């Protein structure tokens, strides 16, 4: 293989309490797509932040373009041709495409001096680059009017305008619809043929076999393996990523389903939900699969009263229920563990105890006055039952690890004694150990008669934990799979609407 474009050797990075990277080697050749995979917390983000100048390594060396290099700031890395395209696209929505392409790196007039910027020259160069990619892009349009795929295109064009030699793509297919994924892949091949080195991060392993040349697996901050994709397999990658068998991760016990607890009939909301009907029984874990934007979270929000449906019926234990506010949902015995723990699930500066009691303050109060002794007793009880690792109930929730924070959110809702528990990506961003614990907890709760609706983008989690899996595509339920018949392939077929 040719001389590497970028070479990292023995990169180590320590954060308070975590060794994020432990002597990691990583090399990228020009014209190569190098996939980087690993579980959340494996060190992928830290590694790309080191390459892109956000973090500095504690030890190790970086060679770039054949010479030792340091990137003290993101700007320094960008100036030397390292571009990062994050999953959450970082553009200025109200500015035009052209302005976004040049923000922070405006071109000056060639002849005259001064601080003026040369829009004509910038427009000409931008048109050139966009045309060379073989795509259409209206340079005058405000970016917020563009689709996710087009916005990604703006980011790629922006990287090329700055003569990027290395482009890091973090979950680039996350926000894309299926046809756009194909287009992105052909664009990536084009970049590769121009000699750009691409670091490709994705949780969707099947993509890696389509688009990447080599793959590196990280686990717990260490590099486990680097291999050409032709010499590895999906199963081998999963084994390297997880480092243990899947059974331990998904302790699902067989529970006999009881009476229906939640019956949903023809729920509809604009174009986002169309005639969604299903039944959830006591003791049952029903998985809800689907790609981003398929309507899973919309369904959860409709059931929990965050964004009430326009048509359709919801019955709880056989009784008609109208939910138009989360407070009502809570009183009816519906609990919702939201997708984004820190932004939606917790009041981070609040102590652990006050987070645990937030949904049940009324029960812990008399005449509006909070009974602090009872509050503390309930909080301590949940800390013990859920094994929440915290120095005490008066510590701010912000100080806990992701997995323990998630347990606080779960505890908050268990305290409300729900009949139905909706969990939206309950293990996203928690480490493998905490993940297994949350799964064990789910199993235990189902065993005690709770009906659980599990939304997850992680197919192994859905397959491992669900009694049944409902698959959504474009606001509809496109299929239902029993535990014994469900496979990743069947789910993906239904989720992409191919069937």
């Amino acid at each position, binding site marked *: 293989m040719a001389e590497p474009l970028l070479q990292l050797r023995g990169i180590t990075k320590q954060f308070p309490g975590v060794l994020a990277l432990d002597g990691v080697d990583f090399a990228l050749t020009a014209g190569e797509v190098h996939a980087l995979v690993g579980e959340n917390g494996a060190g992928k*983000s830290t590694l790309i932040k080191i390459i892109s100048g*956000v973090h500095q390594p504690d030890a190790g060396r970086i060679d770039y373009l054949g010479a030792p290099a340091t990137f003290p700031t993101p700007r320094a890395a960008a100036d030397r041709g390292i571009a990062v395209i*994050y*999953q*959450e696209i*970082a553009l200025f929505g109200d500015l035009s495409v052209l302005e976004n392409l040049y923000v922070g790196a405006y071109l000056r007039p060639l002849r005259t001096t001064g601080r003026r910027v040369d829009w004509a020259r910038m427009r000409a160069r931008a048109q050139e680059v966009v045309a060379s990619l073989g795509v259409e892009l209206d340079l005058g349009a405000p970016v917020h009017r563009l689709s996710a795929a087009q916005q990604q295109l703006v980011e790629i064009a922006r990287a090329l305008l700055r003569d990027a030699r290395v482009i890091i793509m*973090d979950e680039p297919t996350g926000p894309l619809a299926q046809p756009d994924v194909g287009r992105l892949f052909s664009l990536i091949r084009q970049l590769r043929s121009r000699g750009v080195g691409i670091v490709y991060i994705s949780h969707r392993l099947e993509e890696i076999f389509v688009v990447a040349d080599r793959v590196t697996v990280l686990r717990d901050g260490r590099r486990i393996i680097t291999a050409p994709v032709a010499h590895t397999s999906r199963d081998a990658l999963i084994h390297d990523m997880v480092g243990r068998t899947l059974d331990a991760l998904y302790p699902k016990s067989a529970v006999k389903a009881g009476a229906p607890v939640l019956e949903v009939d023809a729920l509809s909301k604009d174009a986002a939900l169309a005639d969604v009907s299903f039944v959830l029984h006591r003791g049952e874990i029903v998985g809800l699969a689907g790609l981003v934007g398929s309507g899973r979270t919309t369904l959860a929000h409709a059931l*929990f009263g*965050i964004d009430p449906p326009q048509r359709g019926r919801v019955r709880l234990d056989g009784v008609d229920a109208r939910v138009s*506010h*989360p*407070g009502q*949902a*809570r*009183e009816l015995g519906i609990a*919702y563990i*939201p997708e984004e723990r820190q*932004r*939606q*699930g*917790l*009041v*981070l*500066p*609040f102590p652990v105890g*006050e987070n645990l009691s*937030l*949904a049940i*303050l*009324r029960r812990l*109060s008399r005449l*509006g*006055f*909070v009974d*602090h002794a009872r509050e503390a007793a309930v909080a301590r009880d949940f800390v013990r039952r859920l094994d929440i690792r915290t120095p005490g109930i008066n510590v701010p929730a912000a100080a806990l690890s992701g997995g323990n924070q998630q347990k606080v959110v779960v505890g*908050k809702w268990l305290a*409300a004694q729900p009949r139905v528990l909706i969990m939206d990506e309950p293990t996203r961003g928690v480490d493998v150990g905490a993940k297994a614990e949350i799964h064990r907890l789910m199993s235990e709760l189902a065993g005690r008669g709770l009906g659980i609706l599990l939304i997850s983008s992680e197919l192994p989690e859905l397959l491992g934990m669900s009694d049944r899996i409902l698959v959504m595509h474009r606001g509809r339920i496109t299929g239902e799979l029993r535990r014994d018949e469900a496979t990743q392939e069947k789910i993906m077929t239904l989720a992409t609407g191919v069937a």
Partner: protein
Amino acid sequence: MMMRWGRELTILAALALLSGYLSLTQPNFRDAFTLSTILTNAAYVGVVGIGMTMVIVAGQIDISVGSMLAVCALIAGTLARAGAPMFLVVLTSLALGLGMGALNGALIAYLRIPSIIVTLATLTALRGAIVWWTKGYWVMPLPPGWKFLGTTHILGLPLPVWIGWAAVLAAAYVLAHTIIGREVYALGSNPQAARLAGIDTARVTFWVFAVSGLLVGLATMLHVTRFSMVQTQEGLGLEFLVITAVVVGGTNIFGGSGTVVGTYLGVLLLTVTSSALTFLGISATWDQAIRGAFILVAVTADIVRTGRWRQPVRWAR
């Protein structure tokens, strides 16, 4: 304890230093009249500050308090001149304050108009209505019963001082020990999580503005019943003074944290400083410069204490 009450203790220390210095160098500062004037001024500003603290902790702002105070004062004065009994005058002031605050609250909580816009509108509109209605004339003379509230003394201190203290303590208790108090902090700290925990966030937002208005109605009565006329420019610029006190008192301007005791101490510090300038013969124009400096010192102290300035800028990921 030091950390938790750090701001309050710092202000207390500053107050002690300043008053100590003035007491030693300016014999007149020590007399009962000065003390009672300072405390009475602090009482009405402090009561408005309680409401403002709740509003700011909830993540909002209310800049209409000065105009609301003027409306309450002028209508109360007019009513008193028309011969209404004092208890009715007081009730009217409270009801008017509550009504105007509820209007602010309804527009902000239920129509979801930003609070800075709504209260800017009420600030301007109410001030305009006052000029139109009074044509600039002061409300005077007022009947003899008018000054009962403002001039009655208990244990040597004017009644408004006691009422102010009672209000501060009651509000501190409500914020720390009731459901609504907890909900105000949760809302200001993370509105999304608060809503998802089943808190009726619109109701809480409405509540803080209504309470803020009610407290303005009360503050009006503590303030204007000391004088024998009501001026049309009553309460002009009050919002700046109150917001300054809230920030100096340690409340996070972005919501989520702060205490009414801190605000009250902030009010005291600003009031003592104003009167110190008078005693030291320094031009009153310096008052505003000093208030500005207090804000900068308070905010800088926070950032240095938490080490925030040394942390890198937060990246989205």
